[in-house]
């Protein structure tokens, strides 16, 4: 069975500083990994995904993520945080066994960017 872990419930950074939100995964076979963001009382929005290819994936709003196969990690990063980046972030791994496209989500990490 596949799983995703987000070891930090909360990440606090100052505006302008780099940010990292951590994610580790466990799958059998090739990992298909995603990051989503959720603002209060809203649905999730897709940020980026890793399917294959370059280990550094670039996504929306200046976010990027680094896939590390040996460490089974897919950390989300941004060089310079904005206050508006404050939100709940989810890492997800897709089920590769079916075409149903099911994904397993982590428990989420709350990012707070302080001015």
């Amino acid at each position, binding site marked *: 069975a596949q799983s995703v872990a987000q070891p930090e419930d909360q990440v606090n950074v100052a505006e302008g500083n780099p940010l990292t939100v951590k994610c580790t995964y466990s799958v059998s076979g090739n990992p298909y990994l995603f990051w989503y963001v959720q603002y209060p*009382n809203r649905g999730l929005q*897709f940020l980026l995904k890793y*399917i294959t290819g370059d280990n550094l994936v670039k996504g929306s709003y200046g976010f990027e993520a680094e896939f590390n196969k040996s460490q089974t990690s897919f950390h989300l990063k941004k060089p310079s945080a904005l206050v508006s980046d404050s939100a709940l972030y989810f890492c997800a791994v897709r089920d590769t066994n079916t*075409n149903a*496209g*099911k*994904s397993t*989500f982590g*428990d*989420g990490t709350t990012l707070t960017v302080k001015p």
Partner: protein
Amino acid sequence: SQTIHQWPATLVQPVGSPLSLECTVEGTSNPNLYWYRQAAGRGLQLLFYSVGIGQISSEVPQNLSASRPQDRQFILSSKKLLLSDSGFYLCAWSVRASGRLIYEQFFGPGTRLTVL
């Protein structure tokens, strides 16, 4: 462009009452559809998914059910709500995977359900 709608946005229901939440997708055909529940603003629990009309798969045993009467319509129902059914319900869709193409999910705005 594709759009996903959910309604109602908020709902307060007494214990034991029925439930019907509706989700519709525009601008795409043959999507995979999903119902999630999010408790206390944290992790998502997949409740149901569907790969086609009338095809429903349940992920967890519970007093909820789902139906897909049309290609782009997904309905979440209950005959009798429990207190534990309170939560934030999210509908999502994705393009059906084709070969090595893997697609992300697109989420609706959600329904906040409070069972009293």
